[in-house]
């Protein structure tokens, strides 16, 4: 175990009483509670942590936060492993295990670094220009290229052992970011009594105040943060969410937050709690106080480990108690660098400042007071070092900044801290549709016009002084609360901040010159993760990829896991320079969610495994399971498919069930069919307008089969409706269309025919239905009912009766989808199982056999009854089905006009017919395509396809239904079903194979 040689003895927010062991790249190391993985590595003197994507260059830790492009690690192992985590955001916990990525065999010795040697052959977009020969060559090259693809690894095993949660919340004010501006905003909004949420992505609120040595009210700023949090904690309607990244700003002030609930704990140590939680917040008003990201500077070899952002260096010193180096070179284009220089010097780092601005700013005094050398008007020519920066060459810049004005000097250093200026974190503002404007003084984009109900405060708004951030935060919080109808936050007390010197303007020197001028261009990195250099940007511009969007896609700038937080503005600046335009004219690429990546797991939430999607079952389901039924998924329903007996194949079982239904009696669970009560004086009229056939004249007590079309004339659904009373119908729909048909009726009723006096109510779930089929159906039912007269005269086919069955109040409909004598018995769903078991018991004597959907399909196909959605596909009219007789002549209905269009009148439309195979044992595969004759070279003209096909045990031969071009006129014709391996000769027949006159079901 190492002893953290770069840890300061005191200071910072780490808990030196709580050392934590962890493993990095196979080495056991130690850090403290309060560390991030990055700070712990730095405390151990480790700077080399990764390899870049393309050239595999050694890379270190650039930042201390969300913007990190380099320090990406593979966290943990097995099913819990996670790729591409930013070490700067991973909180240290005991036993943490992390590995570097994208290197082999090891981080120090990476074979992929060969790419760096031939890097001249790999400029931006090189792959568009080569790998084209031979014609199919790419498939071979690709194999090798893919091997190099990607950074970390996905888990090799699933499912994810952790659970994820979601929360919907509504609030008056959502404050994003808990730095000084956000805290002030939350205090003001909270004081007004508004419902406030304050979210910050970091482990503790405080933002930049945790990383500086500034004071508030004369005390360390963190003290004020504690007080502010205590005040917020005392407000009932304020919710503070640490470790929560606001990642998306969507329409209508809907924001999405990802909370890392237990990611900071050892894996699996909090089994009761979710790993992450997705907060879906509908906010009346939003205050964005998201701070700013520091910009790197673009100079030759600016990517070596040990080169980091000045603010990050400062954060490691102040927040984590780490001394990141012995000798530091601080490179400044903005005053922000001086605070870092001072803080580094104060913990014993030897510091030199290089400021690209001609004159050192006022704040340089503090540095000089610590005898820090300040070289104004200088820049970095290049750097030296391997796995860590060793030295840097600095030289005076000429007035334009495009060349060097004097000799170079080499400075030894093991840290280069750079500050090229600050980019307000405008991501969410921009996602919300807000427009950005360019602030030339500070060389950055700032929020301009909002389009949603949002305000911006603090550094995110380009307000970089602490005092101003606080007041702006308070004003924003107060205004937001007021806009939401609350007041009283304006006079929340704010602490007094130190007055700093007036800042000097930032110098927007987008790329420092190379040396020697015109010589071999050394790499000036712009996008560290994707290895995009200033030269790549120039190449893209030269080749015509001049829109920022083309630049992005041609060079991949900003397309990495950091989405260009450190690179985009520099790339724009360089491009603008090349095109001779101003940065704002060039514009930005589009900011998109998420602000930082979010796990798929948290987006799915609980909708996985058993809760992925509701499984709907009928009241009789337990019985089916106990009988060993196999189930078929129909929408969300599980329907019994067939009931194999031990040792039976599906074929055996279905044949047995089919025979039972025709020769004895069989029982089907028909509970899933949709049922709609249509009631009112105009109920018949509504049905008449919906169905192709008429319902108004249907007598009470009787049932009728109906067909409905879409307005384009294509069959939508079918089913039997019963007239319950003069003003009352019970409409049945297919299982899959239950919701759709109800919606369809409602849509027409409410929007087109509001004058109709009729209500539609779903009663699908109210009823459980057992359907008896077979010659003994009546006899069996007779044993179970005393008050329903089953005599065929009294209770004819297509009638319904109410009474009791097995002592249960029931509705019995004498309809038949099997073509047999058949009764559908419906009872209150709670009695479904009781009814079913009673029937099963009484049926034993009759050889009662339960049957599933497969047998139902066979039986109805024997009769030529269609299944909407199987024998139709949205392109089939009633006439195509041979059901023209059901199309009423003397009334209009939805879809009728379409049946008279040119195409629907064609004689060669695909029409429903039956098929008999020449070999009676051959069962055609459904979906088989029908052609005129076998063989032939593609394209072979197709005449139609097999929609339904079964072995009919009752008939002793196979049967099939098909849609065939001009089929109605082809009865008797020989055709061929062409399958991949063979062709099957068939004869076109009428689609009714059994009992065409319906004697069996009527009898």
């Amino acid at each position: 175990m190492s002893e953290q040689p770069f840890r300061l003895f005191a200071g910072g927010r780490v808990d030196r009483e709580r050392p934590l062991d962890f493993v990095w790249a196979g080495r056991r190391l130690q850090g403290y509670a309060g560390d991030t993985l990055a700070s712990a590595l730095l405390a151990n003197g480790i700077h080399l942590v990764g390899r870049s994507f393309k050239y595999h260059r050694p890379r270190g830790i650039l930042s201390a936060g969300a913007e990190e492009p380099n320090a990406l690690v593979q966290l943990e192992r097995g099913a819990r492993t996670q790729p591409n985590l930013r070490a700067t955001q991973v909180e240290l916990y005991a036993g943490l295990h992390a590995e570097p990525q994208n290197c082999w065999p090891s981080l120090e010795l990476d074979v992929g670094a060969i790419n760096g040697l031939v890097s001249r052959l790999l400029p931006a977009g090189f792959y568009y220009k080569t790998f084209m020969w031979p014609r199919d060559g790419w498939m071979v090259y690709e194999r090798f290229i893919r091997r190099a693809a990607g950074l970390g690894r996905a888990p090799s095993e699933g499912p994810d052992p952790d659970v994820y949660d979601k929360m919907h919340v509504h609030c008056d004010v959502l404050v994003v970011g808990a730095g000084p501006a956000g805290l002030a905003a939350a205090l003001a909004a909270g004081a007004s009594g508004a419902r406030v949420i304050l979210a910050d992505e970091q482990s503790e609120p405080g933002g930049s105040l945790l990383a500086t040595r500034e004071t508030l009210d004369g005390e360390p700023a963190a003290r004020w943060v504690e007080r502010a949090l205590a005040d917020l904690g005392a407000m009932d309607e304020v919710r503070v969410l640490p470790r929560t990244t606001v990642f998306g700003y969507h329409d209508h002030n809907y924001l999405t937050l990802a909370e890392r609930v237990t990611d900071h704990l050892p894996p699996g140590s909090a089994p009761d709690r979710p790993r992450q939680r997705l907060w879906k917040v509908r906010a009346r008003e939003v205050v964005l106080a998201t701070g700013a990201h520091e910009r790197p500077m673009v100079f030759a070899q600016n990517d070596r480990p040990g080169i980091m952002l000045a603010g990050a260096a400062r954060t490691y010193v102040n927040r984590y108690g780490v001394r990141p180096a012995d000798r530091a070179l601080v490179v400044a284009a903005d005053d922000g660098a001086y605070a870092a220089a001072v803080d580094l010097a104060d913990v014993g780092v030897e510091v030199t400042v290089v400021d690209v601005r001609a004159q050192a700013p006022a704040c340089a005094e503090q540095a000089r007071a610590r005898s820090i050398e300040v070289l104004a008007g200088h820049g970095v020519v290049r750097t030296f070092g391997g796995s860590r920066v060793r030295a840097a060459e600095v030289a005076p810049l000429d007035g334009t900044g495009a060349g060097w004005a004097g000799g170079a000097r080499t400075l030894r250093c093991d840290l280069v801290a750079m500050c090229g200026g600050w980019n307000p974190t405008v991501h969410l503002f921009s996602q919300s549709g807000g427009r950005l404007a360019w602030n030339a003084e500070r060389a950055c984009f700032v929020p301009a016009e909002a389009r949603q109900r949002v305000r911006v405060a603090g550094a995110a708004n380009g307000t970089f002084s602490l005092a101003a951030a606080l007041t702006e935060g308070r004003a924003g919080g107060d205004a937001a609360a007021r806009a939401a109808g609350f007041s009283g936050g304006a006079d929340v007390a704010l602490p007094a901040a130190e007055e700093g010197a007036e800042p000097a303007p930032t110098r927007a020197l987008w790329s420092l010159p190379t040396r020697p001028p015109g010589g071999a261009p050394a790499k000036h990195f712009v996008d560290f993760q994707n290895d995009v250099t200033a030269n790549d940007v120039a190449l893209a511009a030269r080749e015509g990829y001049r829109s920022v969007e083309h630049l992005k896609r041609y060079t991949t700038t900003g397309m990495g896991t950091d989405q260009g937080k450190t690179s985009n503005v520099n790339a724009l600046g360089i491009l603008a320079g090349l095109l001779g335009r101003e940065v704002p004219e060039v514009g930005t690429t589009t900011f998109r969610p998420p602000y930082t990546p979010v796990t798929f797991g948290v987006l799915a939430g609980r909708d996985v495994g058993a809760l992925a999607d509701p499984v709907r079952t009928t009241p009789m389901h337990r019985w089916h399971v106990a009988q060993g039924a196999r189930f078929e998924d129909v929408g969300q329903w599980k329907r019994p498919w067939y009931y194999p007996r031990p040792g039976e194949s599906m074929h055996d079982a279905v044949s047995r069930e089919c025979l039972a239904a025709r020769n004895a009696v069989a029982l089907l669970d028909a509970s899933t069919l949709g049922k709609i009560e249509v009631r009112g004086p105009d109920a018949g009229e509504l049905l008449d307008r919906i169905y192709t056939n008429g319902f108004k004249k249907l007598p009470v007590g009787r049932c009728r089969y109906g067909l409905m079309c879409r307005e384009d004339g294509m069959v939508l659904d079918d089913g039997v409706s019963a007239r319950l009373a003069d003003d009352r119908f019970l409409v049945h729909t297919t299982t899959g269309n239950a919701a759709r048909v109800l919606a369809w009726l409602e849509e027409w009723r409410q929007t087109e025919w509001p004058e109709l006096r009729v209500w539609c109510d779903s009663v699908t779930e109210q009823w459980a239905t057992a359907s008896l089929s077979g010659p003994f159906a009546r006899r069996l039912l007779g044993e179970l009912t005393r008050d329903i007269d089953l005599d065929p005269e009294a209770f004819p086919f297509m009638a319904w009766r109410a009474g009791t069955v097995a002592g249960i109040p029931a509705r019995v409909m004498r309809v038949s989808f099997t073509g047999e004598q058949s009764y559908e018995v419906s009872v209150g769903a709670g009695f479904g199982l009781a009814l079913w078991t009673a029937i099963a018991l009484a049926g034993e004597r009759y050889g009662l056999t339960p049957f599933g959907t497969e047998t139902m399909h066979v039986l109805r196909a024997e009769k030529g009854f269609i299944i909407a959605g199987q024998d139709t596909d949205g392109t089939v009219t009633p006439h195509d089905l041979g059901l023209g007789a059901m199309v009423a002549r003397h009334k209009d209905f939805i879809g009728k006009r379409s049946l008279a269009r040119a195409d629907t009148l064609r004689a060669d439309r695909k029409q429903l017919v039956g098929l008999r195979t020449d070999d009676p044992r051959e069962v055609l595969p459904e979906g088989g395509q029908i052609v005129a004759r076998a063989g032939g070279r593609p394209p072979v003209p197709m005449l139609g396809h097999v929609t339904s096909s079964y072995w009919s045990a009752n008939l002793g031969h196979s049967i099939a239904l098909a849609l065939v071009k001009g089929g109605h006129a082809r009865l008797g014709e020989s055709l061929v079903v062409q399958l991949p391996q063979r062709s099957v000769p068939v004869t076109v027949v009428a689609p009714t194979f059994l009992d065409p006159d319906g004697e069996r079901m009527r009898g």
Partner: protein
Amino acid sequence: MLLIECPWCGPRDEQEFGYGGEAHIVRPADPHALDDAAWGEYLFMRTNRKGAHRERWVHSEGCRRWFNVVRDTVSHEILAVYRVGEAPPAAGRRGE
């Protein structure tokens, strides 16, 4: 996630609603009086406006009522909500 104001239930998330396409497409009183072209126009042709769009929604997870909305199809701003049978408010004509 749009926030849509149901005229009966108040503002609810878009997921509670069903979208019903362009509003005010009246079914011809006598479809058979139309030629194929006019019928095709009724069936399929849509304004598909970029800007203020009059459209139908149904609160399917809530009160099951259909109603009309004027929504800007670029910004998604909802400019008006009105019941079936009511005339679109004048404001809804903005941008047309």
